[in-house]
């Protein structure tokens, strides 16, 4: 009774006192947000704008704005074959890695999530223990394994290890996702005459699409940005991926700062476009990864 009488009076008082507070709070928040975003974007803007300047502009005033704007650097990079070859290699590696991680990860997660068998726990533990072994730790022997398989200097030599190292995260995200598919759906599919494999392909794959998209995006961005593994595996410039190419370009043309900046900003463009298309999924996927 005391509670019910107390509530209305507070409810009346609440908004009156709260409203100006909240508005003032929001103003502070907007100011902070603008400052933070400016700090986050300034280096990116420096790279992009620097590409529109000439080397003499950059030498006389390293922190200035373009004046006049010079599009030659960007046109040179876009007109040359090097940039497109790097993008092509990165695309092949990224797409193949994503496809592999999704296919292998989904199949293994399905078994771990929905089959009862001895060794299931051990299998889950094995894959999740992979989180403790990032590429850095295994890089030297990994290079030797890849070389012994005859995959050194080939894109396959980057793709296969990336799939392997992508599996732990994938399985950790997908297993709870697949467990959450209600048993009734599986029973219904069985009554309709589908075996467990049929259930997998007809029901699980479509139902798992949101989780799969998250996992796929994480795998793609990881692959697109990966540096250490290609650095070890790829020594032939014809097979270089974008990160290796950017580094080679920037040391080769270190005098031509403007062109390096143009090259660098063009190389971050695909990841940014990809990110802005899928940003909701990425953020959502991280949330799931933390909870799972």
């Amino acid at each position, binding site marked *: 009774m005391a509670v019910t009488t107390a509530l209305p009076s507070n409810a009346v008082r609440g908004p009156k006192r709260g409203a100006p507070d909240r508005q003032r*709070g*929001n103003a502070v*928040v907007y100011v*902070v*947000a603008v400052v933070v*975003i400016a*700090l*986050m*974007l300034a*280096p*990116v803007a*420096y*790279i992009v704008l620097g590409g529109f300047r000439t080397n003499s502009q950059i030498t006389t005033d*390293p*922190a200035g704005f373009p004046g006049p704007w010079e599009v030659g650097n960007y046109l040179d990079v876009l007109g040359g074959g090097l940039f497109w070859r790097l993008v092509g290699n990165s695309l092949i590696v990224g797409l193949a890695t994503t496809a*592999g991680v999704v296919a292998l*990860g989904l*199949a293994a997660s399905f*078994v771990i999530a929905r*089959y009862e*068998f001895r060794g299931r726990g051990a*299998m889950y533990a094995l894959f999740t223990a992979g989180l403790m072994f*990032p590429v*850095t*730790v*295994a*890089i*030297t*022997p990994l*290079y*030797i*394994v*890849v070389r012994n398989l005859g995959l050194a200097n080939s894109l396959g030599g980057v793709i*296969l290890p990336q*799939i*392997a*190292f992508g*599996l732990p995260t994938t399985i950790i995200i997908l297993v709870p996702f697949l467990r959450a598919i209600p048993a009734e759906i599986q029973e219904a599919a*069985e*009554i309709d005459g589908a*075996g*467990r*494999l*049929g259930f*997998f392909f007809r029901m699980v794959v479509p139902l798992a699409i949101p989780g799969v998209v998250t996992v796929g995006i994480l795998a793609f961005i990881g692959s697109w*940005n990966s*540096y*250490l593994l290609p650095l*070890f595996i790829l020594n032939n410039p014809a097979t270089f991926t974008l*990160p290796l190419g950017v*580094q080679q370009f920037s040391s080769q043309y270190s005098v031509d*700062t403007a062109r390096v900046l143009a090259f660098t900003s063009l*190389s*971050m463009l695909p*990841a*940014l476009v990809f990110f802005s298309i899928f940003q909701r999924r*990425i953020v959502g996927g*991280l*949330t799931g990864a*933390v909870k799972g």
Partner: protein
Amino acid sequence: MTVHEQLAQGQRSSAPRSTTGGGASAPSPVRRRQRANAWRGRLEIALLTLPALVVFLTFVVFPVLSAAYYGFFRWTGYGVPTQFVGLQNYVTILQDPTFIDALTHNGVIVVLSLVLQGPIAILLALLLNRKLRFQGAIRVLIFIPYVISEVVVGTGWTLILQTSGALNSLLPKIGLGFLQTDWLADPSIAIWSLMAIITWKYIGFAVILFLAGLQGIPEELTEAASIDGASFWQIQRRITLPLLGPTIRIWAFLSVIGALQLFDLVYIIWGQYVASTAGTSTMATYLVVNGRNAGSYGYGNAVAVVLFLVSLIVALVYQRAVLRRDTEGALTGKGR
């Protein structure tokens, strides 16, 4: 019962690999069916998990195990290692002042990452965790540096921070000319430049994680507290932070492991040689420089094992000391 019969027959008819031939006339159809199902189940399990297992064992488990093996040899990376040197590589590593420096830098980076990124990210997440206009856009923009590759970040920041770079030219213009310095080469400054870059690159990740964690906290709790007259910051300290504890602890764990294995940024910005003189070398850059680049693969593997053991010990200690205390907020406990 009839449903079960139907179900089993349905399964059998859809399974070409089924070995049962029997129908109702077989002596014990149920048992046979079960055995057939068990076989089919095993086949499915094998079919679905083998590709993942093979790839995982070949490219993760085997290399990790062979690192431990190769670490006992002096080996240039060609042929079968024959020159067994026992623990010699490990003795050399632990006596090499360059490695001890790298290890120390890793330690500094671990601590500074937690101390710099944690509070800033929590503060930002608390500020942004309300209904705001442009909230989606703000989140995306804060997250952008995290999506950009380390190579691009390294190349860009090198041009900004080098002696004749953008920052040193900008400072006098805004009246801070006295701050001009050798951001990358000065050993007393370089580690702070590195920390600034790391914070810039990875804080978006922390903010997004914390925002996700905050959204899991029921609004009723904070509403009830504000009805009882608690101020905004009281609510955050007494209610939100403790409930955010699990997220903070997971983030801290990821951050620590990431800091111990830091490689890309340092290697790209400071190159292969100056990292140790600039005071920014890490265990991973030491591994690459003294293992692969020097052609000493046995030694490199030994370094990898040390790097792994350090990470493992830290992870285990962290799990025992921090992740276990799941009921009380570790961070708020420390803060009080």
